[in-house]
């Protein structure tokens, strides 16, 4: 009996994987969506869903790499805003678009570089630094355009938010770009020494350092990358909206982090997959779209759901590892006393942090 049940358990083990759970959730969301409304799978709705999620998903890629190394970047939405508002300001001054793109991406790189230098060279915690730059960059973005809005962008770019990718009516440009970048990021993360080193850094900075990895330079590079990507998304997003104005992209950092953590990336670093993040992005977008199709739900209600998802995506693995450790301790028969057992399992969960 016992060995047989164990083999069954072993056979079921891959199904317990987070990515598998997300795939199941994605199917569930699709079923839920189509049961809510026949409009769910309409090409228009899928396109809207794609435009909504594509930008966030693109920003989630560098965020995934940063969180895997055990850091965080809360300033991405503010960098997005600086880039979008710069685009607006320079466009009204009749700069050529190509030059504006270069300037915006350079600003993004500089913003990320400032984050990275403060974190890696000065040695400050990324949480504090990026809370500071979240405020600083958002403040600067507000100064660039003030209360005015710019919306007269030229036609091929202005249509990004309404026409599909290469004539595919349901696929937005942002998701097409995301899929390409996701494959590249996934390969780099899994198959290159650089990608593998991110996990090593996230698990133990010191061990990674003594193994000869350039911990500081790697992190600096990731923050610059995050800045450039956020700035690029700023351009894309402004074109999709056909406007750049006050408060653009405000609060996006929460949604990006929600997608990353929902994708099974550990907030403590050292663990995560791009596939999980991509699945999470579509689960998130699908759930949002399905809920908004029900008449009783609006954007504000989804804000509550989104926050709840964020908490659950850390709470569930925490609870699972607690239960796992408690059961392991019980099987070893070490702890008869229930309270002691709980305390010990708790301590082991803490040690993981």
């Amino acid at each position, binding site marked *: 009996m016992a060995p047989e049940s164990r083999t069954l358990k072993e056979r079921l083990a891959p199904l317990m994987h987070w990515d598998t759970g997300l795939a199941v959730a994605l199917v569930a969301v699709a079923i839920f969506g189509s049961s809510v409304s026949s409009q769910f799978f309409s090409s228009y709705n899928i396109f809207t869903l794609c435009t909504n999620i594509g930008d966030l998903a693109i920003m989630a890629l560098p965020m995934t790499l940063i969180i895997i190394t055990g850091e*965080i970047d809360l300033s991405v939405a503010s960098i997005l805003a600086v880039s979008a508002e710069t685009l607006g300001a320079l466009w009204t001054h009749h700069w050529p678009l190509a030059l504006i793109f270069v300037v915006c991406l350079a600003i993004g790189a500089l913003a990320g570089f400032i984050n990275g230098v*403060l974190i890696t060279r*000065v*040695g*400050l*915690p990324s*949480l*504090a*630094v990026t*809370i*500071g*730059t*979240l*405020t*600083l*960059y*958002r*403040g*600067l973005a*507000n*100064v660039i355009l*003030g209360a005015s809005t710019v919306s007269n962008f030229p036609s091929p770019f202005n249509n990004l938010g309404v026409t599909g990718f290469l004539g595919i009516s349901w696929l937005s440009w942002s998701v097409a770009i995301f899929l390409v970048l996701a494959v590249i990021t996934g390969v780099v993360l899994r198959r290159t020494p650089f990608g593998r080193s991110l996990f090593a850094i996230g698990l133990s900075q010191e061990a990674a350092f003594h193994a000869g990895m350039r911990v500081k330079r790697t992190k600096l590079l990731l923050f610059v990358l995050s800045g450039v990507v956020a700035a690029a998304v700023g351009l894309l997003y402004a074109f999709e909206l056909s406007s750049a104005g006050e408060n653009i992209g405000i*609060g996006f950092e*929460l949604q990006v*982090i*929600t997608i990353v*953590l929902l994708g099974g990336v550990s*907030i*403590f670093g050292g663990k995560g997959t791009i596939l999980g993040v991509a699945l999470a992005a579509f689960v998130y977008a699908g759930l949002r779209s399905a809920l908004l199709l029900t008449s009783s739900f609006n954007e*504000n*209600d*989804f*804000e*509550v759901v*989104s*926050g*709840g998802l*964020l*908490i659950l995506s*850390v*709470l569930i693995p*925490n*609870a699972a590892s*607690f239960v796992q450790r408690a059961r392991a301790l019980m099987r070893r028969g070490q702890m008869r006393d229930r309270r002691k057992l709980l305390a010990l399992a*708790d*301590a082991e*969960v*803490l040690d993981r*942090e």
Partner: protein
Amino acid sequence: MSATTTEAPPTIAPESPRRLVDLVLRARTFGILGVLLLFVLITTAIQPRFLHAANIQFILATTALYALVAVGETFVVITRNVDLSVGSVVGLSAYVSANMFQAHHGIPIPVVFLVGLGVGVACGLVTGIITAVGRVPSLVVTLAMLYIIRGFDTIIVGSGQVVANSLPNSFINIFHATILGIPDVAIAVAVVVAIAAFYLRTYRSGRELYAIGSDPDAARLGGIPIARRIFGAFVLSGALAGLGGVLWATQYNTIDATAATGLELQIIAAVVVGGVAIFGGSGSVVGAALGALLLQTINSALNVLGVASLWTEAISGFLLLVAITLDRGIQLRLAAALRRRRVHLGA
């Protein structure tokens, strides 16, 4: 071992490490006061109107709200956590408490304060339980709570808002009343700051907050009930933010669903500028209150000097970065100095 040991306990010599740390921390507080004074002098030199009694009263009264919420935030940050949800708590509490006047005519003002406090405590309880029991990092929990509470606020407020003429004059006057020229709210908050400072300095549980923040593992091995202390810090932060919401209502009078959006960043800036280490384990509520005063003074100075208020946000972010960078420098120097001393004394 024996009761007759002749060795006296070593007295703390003037150059002992403990004294040095104290000195640096005190210098940090005086540093804020120095910057504050500098700002006041420069602004007054350019625009003497800045030092008018009415302007000083206004600065003190607006600081009261920030200092009050900053006290709660300080408790949380000392334990190496962070509370990003305070802005949303202030917003929700401001609406719910001010709306009491519309819902129940002639409701006594103390009851309204209790309602605000209750809203804050409820929010703090949820955050505290998820953080302390669920072991979810406070950054994640409070970032999520920021949006969850704001979402609830938007749902409750709907398309309505509280307008000034639905509030009784006695309520609005709370913000403007003064005793001997000092705003009542500033005095009340100063009392809260004093009590909190006394608690953190002298009570065992207060000291334990510092122990948790400076080394969580050591604190756990030392038998400190970490979960309970962190839980308590979050409940206090929620409670003070709830009271802050009522103050917000007395000050702004018109309250919609966007009230106090982004306030958490100003509060964290005040706390960090005030010398509370973002790594936890160090800092004081007096420093945090001074940090709030400094930020409000700068706001007012920019206003008086005619600099667009658009710059306020950028400047508080910049000051936050300057403060953590300076603190890091001080911390490294201090650690190096202590190490040298230890080598020197052979301890």
